[in-house]
């Protein structure tokens, strides 16, 4: 490999040493998929990442060269795809992944792309005037019709399911309806960090599920504290409420005549009487 490098033109050598420099400067070296991201958005993303991560687009062959000379990094080469770019950061791969997720935006779908989620067209009027558009929408499987001089979607319909391909007719129709189903942004393919390679599927964290797990954990602690009657600042009030509730329950059950519960006792007597009256007529 070294010998071959000697014959490279200077600009390629410079690129390779630039990659190597970045790789040694940053803790994390990642590959991102740039497929389908318009130049304008690449600029925005770069701006958003400034100070946190550095993006470098270059030829795959040069990346392979650079990685090949960096030992461990060579493992990443196998994840290179046609639209890979390099990303460098000092954040850990999970942080980087969620950072990149947050920079994603919605775009129109191109024919042949896969729907990232169910695409649902809601019923209701559109802004279109009657014309060939109705036929175009219908051919795309969208229940369009003319009502009161306007093109209207007759019923809410899922036109394509998550994971299915969006065909040309549908893609065109979605553009006309201004529906942007595609998430575009840098997709982290793999990251090399502190000696290991992290694949994208490991890095994807379901934020909602995670948030719910915090709520669950807090609920567990709350319940344990209250049920085991181990009072803490957070739960002392709830424990008292529970104690009083139990006391009231017993008082009502036993029909204890006490000012605090007598109305509940009367109410219960009345409810029982009503229930019995329903039966006796």
């Amino acid at each position, binding site marked *: 490999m070294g010998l071959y490098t000697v014959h490279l033109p200077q600009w390629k050598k410079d690129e390779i040493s630039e990659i190597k420099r970045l790789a040694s400067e940053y803790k994390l070296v990642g590959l991102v998929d740039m497929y389908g991201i318009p130049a304008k958005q690449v600029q925005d993303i770069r701006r958003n990442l400034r100070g946190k991560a550095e993006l470098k687009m270059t030829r795959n062959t040069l990346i392979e060269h650079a990685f090949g000379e960096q030992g461990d990094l060579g493992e990443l080469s196998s994840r290179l795809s046609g639209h890979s770019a390099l990303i460098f950061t000092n954040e850990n791969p999970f942080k980087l992944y969620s950072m990149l997720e947050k920079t994603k935006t919605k775009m129109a779908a191109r024919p042949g792309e896969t729907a990232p989620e169910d695409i649902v067209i809601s019923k209701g009027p559109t802004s279109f005037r009657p014309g060939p558009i109705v036929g175009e929408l219908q051919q795309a499987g969208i229940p369009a019709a003319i009502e009161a001089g306007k093109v209207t979607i007759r019923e809410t319909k899922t036109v394509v399911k998550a994971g299915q391909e969006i065909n040309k007719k549908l893609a065109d129709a979605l553009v006309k309806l201004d529906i942007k189903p595609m998430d575009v942004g840098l997709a982290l393919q793999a990251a090399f960090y502190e000696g290991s390679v992290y694949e994208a599927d490991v890095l994807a964290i379901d934020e909602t599920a995670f948030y719910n797990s915090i709520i669950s954990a807090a609920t567990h602690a709350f319940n344990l504290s209250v049920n085991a009657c181990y009072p803490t600042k957070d739960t002392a009030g709830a424990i008292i409420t529970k104690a009083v509730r139990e006391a009231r329950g017993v008082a009502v059950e036993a029909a204890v005549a006490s000012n605090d519960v007598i109305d509940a006792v009367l109410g219960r007597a009345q*409810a*029982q*009487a009503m229930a019995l009256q329903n039966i*006796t007529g």
Partner: protein
Amino acid sequence: MEYVYAALLLFKAGKEINESSVQAVLTAAGIAVNESRVKALVASLDGVDIEEAISKAAAAPVAVAAAAP
């Protein structure tokens, strides 16, 4: 409703619910008793599982009442 109250009073006290017992309770409460209503009540309760009937009432959230003291 007072006839039903009387029946429940007897039931809760573990007493038999019959015409004379219902009548006695109502009279003691100062209620002018209508004999045929007493008969009707006793007849309608015949075979009724009162415990079960009232336990259904207990399932209703009765005491939503009690406001804060």
